[in-house]
């Protein structure tokens, strides 16, 4: 009898411990799940901030790259007004910093990249044509006095004779 009651006690005790353990596990699970649920939005927000910062840095480095080419083209005398206007728009959007603005800035910079590349390709030809025009103009201007030195007396004499073509020489 005594043994039976002891076994029953042990059984009940074990059962109680088991139940407590199960309850503890449940509580633990609930805690873990709630922590995860709390952490996920925080992590998402942080990720978004990191993404926005990364994108902003990336866009800034693109602005700097594009400006380097625009500066070179502008210093050679190319018309870069439109490109500067678009670059300023992109800079303003990057400064705003929100997701939508960054996306718009990226789109503007994508469009600018193609145009800047085109300008970069055209630059050597533009430089050659510009130099040719300048030197030709200078050469033309400097050749005027030389031409005048040789041609003006002849032209004057030709005109002088033409004007007096019908004149008669009279002996006195």
């Amino acid at each position, binding site marked *: 009898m005594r043994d039976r009651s002891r076994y029953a006690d042990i059984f009940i005790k074990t059962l109680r411990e088991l139940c407590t353990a199960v309850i503890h596990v449940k509580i633990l699970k609930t805690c873990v799940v709630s922590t995860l649920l709390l952490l996920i939005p925080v992590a998402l927000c942080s990720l978004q901030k990191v993404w926005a910062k990364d994108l902003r840095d990336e866009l800034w480095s693109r*602005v*700097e790259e594009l*400006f*380097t080419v*625009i*500066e*070179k083209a*502008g*210093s050679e*005398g190319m018309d*870069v*007004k439109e490109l*500067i206007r678009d*670059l*300023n728009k992109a*800079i303003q959007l990057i*400064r705003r910093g929100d997701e939508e603005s960054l996306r718009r800035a990226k789109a503007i910079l994508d469009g600018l990249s193609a145009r800047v590349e085109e300008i970069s390709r055209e630059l050597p030809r533009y430089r050659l044509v510009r130099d040719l025009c*300048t030197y030709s*103009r*200078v050469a033309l*201007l*400097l050749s*005027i*006095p030389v031409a*005048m*030195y040789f041609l*003006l*007396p002849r032209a*004057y*004499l030709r005109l*002088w004779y033409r004007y007096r073509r019908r004149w008669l020489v009279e002996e006195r």
Partner: protein
Amino acid sequence: MRFDEEVFAVLLAIVVVACIFTAAQSIPRHGEAFTAIGLLNEECKIGDYPRYIVVGEPVTLCIYVSNHLGKPALLQVRMKIGSRGYLPTNTTPLNTTYVVVLERVLDDGENVTQKITFVLNRTGTNLALVFELWRFDTSVGRWVYDGKWVHLYVNVTRVVPSWGLRRG
């Protein structure tokens, strides 16, 4: 009329001078390269600057920037807080972090006047609102101080709430 050699010489001299002058003008050249920065009031005019500022209240001023470098320039205006005796020089900027910053690309010969709004969060007497001009130097690939700045001395005060205490 005989073709006079003296007349011819005078004509030739005039033509030589005129041609050399025109040729010199047609060669492209840049004058002195410089940038400029100016501080204007809220209405973007000279004078009538704020002397007293309240902590936490937005203040608006106008910044004028001009580019005559002979090429486009990526310029940046950094607003910092200095004090009497603690101002930038032609070679060194203030060694403090900036409160506000604004960037702009300007073509050669272009200028811009832009409003700048900021809030101060510390009190002080004779604080200097310093606006430094920085330029993106493409040869080194980073921002460099352009050696130009403007500043405005202000007193920044805090508004103390009155509790309306009455006697008797």
